[in-house]
């Protein structure tokens, strides 16, 4: 629990936490904050920002501000969930490869390297296009499949170096089962790294979701910041000069992504003594 206090003292972490909480609050209280239902198409089309429509309206007469507020839910959900799944998989693979070593390690490492080199977006595009159902879970799946390799590569060497430490060797000699050793000796010492990984994975998730939606590979009738951007681009927002429709969702993605990246950086600083501010 002391970690939480140390974290809060870190300026970057503070900024990150506050931003994320802010977005979380907006997501949770969306029905109360948004003035109109996001899908209601009754307004005049392509209106510029005004008191009635803070960010204007879309090409189909929807209120942009309400869309953005409601869109917070999906964006946050996909970002955090995909971050979570990626972290779980990369941790499992990193720990198994690092702890077991030998042929298992070799195979997993080759697999990891391959998935690291294969570029994320093109693979995501291929996977999404072939999926029969396009929606939130498809996107989460696709992000997870493409994003786990980096975390695994980071976690494995840590596990390997822990394995050679005396206290772990002691547990082995006593006869503890591998599960016990991993759970009690190894995992607590890589927690910091795993948490940092989570934030990095979440950034990847958020940006990927936005990218996929923007390309039209998500569920275009769902509401997230990414889909708003998709419709903005499709609806020629730029030619209409509707800069709020076009730029605000992207800015929010950048802010949320940036907050997650700050958290990643802050946790990294805490875990790696050489990066610590002095």
């Amino acid at each position: 629990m002391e970690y939480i206090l140390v974290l809060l003292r870190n300026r970057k972490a503070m900024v990150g936490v506050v931003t994320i909480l802010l977005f979380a609050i907006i997501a949770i209280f969306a029905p109360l904050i948004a003035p109109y239902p996001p899908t209601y198409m009754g307004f005049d089309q392509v209106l510029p920002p005004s008191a009635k429509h803070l960010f204007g309206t879309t090409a189909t007469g929807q209120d942009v501000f309400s869309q953005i507020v409601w869109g917070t839910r999906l964006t946050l959900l996909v970002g955090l969930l995909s971050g979570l799944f990626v972290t779980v998989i990369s941790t499992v693979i990193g720990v198994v490869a690092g702890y077991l070593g030998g042929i298992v390690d070799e195979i997993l490492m080759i697999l990891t390297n391959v998935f690291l080199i294969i570029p994320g977006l093109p693979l995501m595009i291929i996977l999404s296009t072939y999926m029969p159902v396009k929606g939130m879970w498809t996107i989460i799946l696709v992000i997870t499949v493409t994003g786990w390799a980096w975390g695994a590569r980071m976690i494995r060497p840590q596990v390997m170096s822990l394995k050679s430490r005396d206290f772990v060797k002691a547990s082995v000699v006593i006869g503890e089962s591998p599960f016990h050793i991993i759970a009690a000796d190894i995992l607590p010492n890589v927690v910091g790294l795993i948490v940092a990984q989570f934030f990095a994975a979440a950034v990847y998730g958020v940006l990927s979701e936005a990218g996929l939606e923007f390309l039209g590979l998500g569920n275009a009738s769902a509401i997230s910041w990414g889909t708003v951007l998709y419709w903005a681009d499709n609806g020629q927002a730029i030619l209409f000069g509707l800069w709020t429709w076009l730029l605000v969702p992207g800015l929010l993605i950048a802010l949320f992504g940036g907050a997650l990246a700050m958290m990643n950086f802050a946790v990294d600083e805490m875990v790696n003594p050489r990066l610590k501010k002095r």
Partner: protein
Amino acid sequence: MKYVFRKVLIFLLTAWITLTINFILPRLMPGNPALAMIAKFKGRLSVQALHSLQVAFGINPDQSALTQYFHYLGQVLTGNFGVSLAYYPNTVAQEVAIHMPWTIGLVGIITIFSFIGGTMLGISSGWKRNSLGSAINVPVSIFLNAVPYFWIALVLQYVFAFALGWFPLTGAFAVSGPTGLALVGSILYHAVLPALTIFITSLGGWVLTMRNNMLNVLGEDYVTFAFAKGLPDNVIKNNYVARNALLPNFTGFAIAIGLIVSGALLTEIVFSYPGVGYLIFQAVINLDYPLMQALFFFITMAILVANLLADLAYVFLDPRVRLGAE
């Protein structure tokens, strides 16, 4: 040499896995899009187009799956990726050949600038870790790193092309078809915004990794020793710290370039810049599976080649790899 051998092995392995993914995916999906598509289009496509689909998917109902697989690999190795559906009657290979150079040019050149600039900023930021410059460029880099590529593209497009009209909105060169020097000028002029987008978004990543590497190296004994020897600060910074901090950048090059390429694809789409990003977008819209698969393969290959070059460069830079350990 064992190092190089290993890298070449991974190169070949990844290439093979990419092809295999291309082969297996359509068959894995429920409903088998390959067969479904062929069935759907059977009445309306020319024989060649149908054949192209079969080539792209490696489908031949008369053969077993394994035979189809090897046949497919064979086709690919002879450069036959089928005919494009969206750009019919051009073959996929032709389309890729037309559009690939634009992306390679754009990404290649900008990555060089971004790498050099980012590395230099990272070096000075890591060396003077608590200076004002450092306090500014670290959060800025973190932020820029998290910004979606296409958003920066949209912002630049809106501000500089639409609102201010300083640069063209889309395309790689003027529609009027200039030639000679004018063509070169036009190409450069049109490349400014896309290039700027990629530069801005990729810079942050290089700065942060270089800074982190510098900070890690600063804790090493040989840096303390260099200081004890009474060497001037500049010499220590460049020959002892930066020179060593640079190395991890090369080993991690593949991931970095993968992210940059992914971002570049989105940028091209925003600016309708005729590279492979734009092409893949067209393929998606038109459900041009042969083109899409081939693009996935070629983009991966391009990254693999870039990565292999980085690995080879690393051999030169790190004597431990070059000369083997004692």
